[in-house]
């Protein structure tokens, strides 16, 4: 299976007044063409930084990057900012978490939507506007003609996220990064947006990276899942495999902390006590050890490497679930 995006040994460090902050540590990930890969983790686990770096969006002088990113035959890490930018729109596109602030508040939807079409596909203004209207219909916005003339503040959160999706898919990208696309939305609207993304992916043969903190969202919408913790990938497997046979205690704990609709009411939730470790000082052992119910001495002292099961299931744990101790 060919990969559309391949990230090798990526590390991202930010220089901060409190020292070097290791946001991403030695991440390897492949996004197979046509597949959807979920990236799951808590706030601060490095999901968003990893995606932005994979898109070549982190360029500041306080950022130290290492590793390689190859997208569709282009080595992004060896290209200039301008060269990478040429891949946006028709190669990669992104939708962001907060549909309220991602759109320009003082430009009409039609003008924001047609911009990419004119720039990237060289369409005339009239063609771009006509296509924009079709795109709004494609993302199931009722009364598209009126929405074209609206400003973002006149639309609801769900509508704005649909507009963001329309902008992202306007130039038929091969890969869509969706960074917490439904976190700011109601459950009903979330279900609609996820359904829309599934359908669009099928119709446009698009690959997707779905970043979320909710394993429930990942379950029905991805082919593979990577779980991140403290800047590292701690488990990676096909989605059905991961849910059927979790190896990493962190993934299991994350799943158990979700309130479920078939829980008995009034029961206490299983929680992961504590918080993510300080990103400027990761310590020697397994990053999850201080919060792990099964941690032993070795976990606090030695950092586990990624292990690979014969079926390709990856996990970073000295004492994985289901293994005789």
């Amino acid at each position: 299976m060919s990969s559309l995006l391949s990230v090798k040994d990526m590390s991202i460090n930010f220089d901060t007044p409190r020292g070097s902050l290791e946001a991403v540590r030695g991440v390897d990930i492949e996004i197979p063409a046509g597949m959807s890969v979920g990236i799951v983790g808590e706030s601060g686990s490095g999901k968003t930084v990893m995606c932005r770096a994979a898109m070549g969006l982190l360029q500041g002088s306080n950022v130290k990057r290492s590793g390689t990113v190859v997208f569709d035959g282009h080595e992004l890490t060896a290209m200039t900012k301008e060269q990478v930018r040429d891949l946006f729109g028709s190669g990669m596109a992104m939708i962001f978490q907060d549909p309220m602030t991602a759109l320009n508040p003082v430009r009409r939807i039609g003008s924001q939507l047609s911009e990419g079409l004119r720039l990237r596909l060289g369409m005339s203004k009239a063609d771009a506007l006509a296509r924009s209207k079709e795109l709004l219909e494609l993302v199931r916005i009722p009364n598209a003609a009126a929405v074209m003339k609206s400003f973002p503040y006149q639309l609801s959160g769900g509508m704005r996220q649909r507009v963001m999706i329309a902008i992202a898919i306007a130039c038929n990208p091969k890969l869509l990064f969706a960074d917490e696309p439904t976190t700011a939305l109601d459950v009903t609207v979330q279900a609609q947006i996820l359904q829309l993304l599934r359908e669009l992916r099928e119709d446009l043969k698009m690959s997707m990276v779905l970043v979320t903190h909710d394993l429930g969202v990942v379950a029905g919408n991805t082919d593979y899942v990577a779980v991140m913790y403290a800047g590292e990938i701690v488990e990676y497997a096909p989605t059905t495999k991961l849910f059927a046979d979790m190896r990493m205690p962190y993934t299991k704990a994350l799943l158990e902390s979700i309130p479920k609709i078939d829980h008995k009411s009034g029961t206490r939730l299983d929680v992961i006590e504590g918080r993510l470790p300080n990103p400027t000082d990761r310590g020697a052992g397994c990053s999850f050890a201080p919060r792990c119910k099964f941690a032993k001495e070795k976990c606090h002292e030695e950092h586990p490497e990624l292990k690979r099961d014969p079926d390709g299931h990856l996990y970073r744990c000295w004492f994985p679930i289901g293994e005789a101790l």
Partner: protein
Amino acid sequence: MAGSGTAHLRNTVDAVLTARDLTVEFRISKDKIVKAVSGLSFDVIKGETLAIVGESGCGKTTLARAVLQLPPPNSGEVVFDGTDLTQLPKENLRSARTSMQMIFQDPISSLDPRMTVHQLIDEPLEIWDRGTRAERDERINTLLNNVGLEPELVLNRRSYEFSGGQCQRISIARALALDPRMLICDEPVSALDVSIQAQILNLLQDMKDRFGLTMIFISHDLAVVKAVSNRVMVMYLGKICEVAAPEVLYAKPAHHYTKALLNSVPIADPTRQRATELLQGEPPSPMNPPSGCRFRTRCAAASALCADQEPQLREVTPGQFVACHHPVA
């Protein structure tokens, strides 16, 4: 959802709060009125957690604020501990409010960034003159310990130095400072990660058990609500759709809207079949709500009757009240 009516009120002496026929409207221009809450009644019994569930814009927050008279409802009565808050003079209302406290959705922006944690929790105690300086400091330490924060480490820090989950713990400590009888939580965990969300939900549950609190818990997420509530009230466009105990409501929703909400909850199991019938579109504008049942424009079971007549709440199974002409079989 039309759901006017009072069939679901329990009329018992144990009711801490009874709201009758509450209406809240906002005039936004000469001829435009937002009908946020329309003729809604509910009660909360001592020690109970009532969950209020619905989409953005259904009037959940407005309803909770109307209970606290922030602002007072346009009509209706709010009886808290035997007193109608809508009739109270301002000064009496202020002291009545000490026994009903609110926790807000955004934990970071609901705390004053210039105040230290000590000042934040001391403020209500100082205003109401609860004890000497030393007694108040003692009380602040106890409160922080109760919510799982280490007083020495946090007292002199400000809200921006904390994560969302920690800020929510501080808000809870502040809300508990005056020993309230009732806690109104407005989407207290919506802005938090799942792992932190579970910690805060457990904490709220502990505080409730420990201090015998009565709670109103507002959320758009039915899964969250199930974990904490004794009674669930589903709202749509300012009206009640359904009221029932969670065991009944989740197992056999009687209202089509409740069923749709349940179908939208993501299930963390890729082998489970996803519901294909999703609720389409968004709620109509509360400035111009549909006639009859307000949900009819998005309801698959709607008939001509639904447009003509507003359904009244009625009991379909013991303890389960629904406002629908054609309840789910």
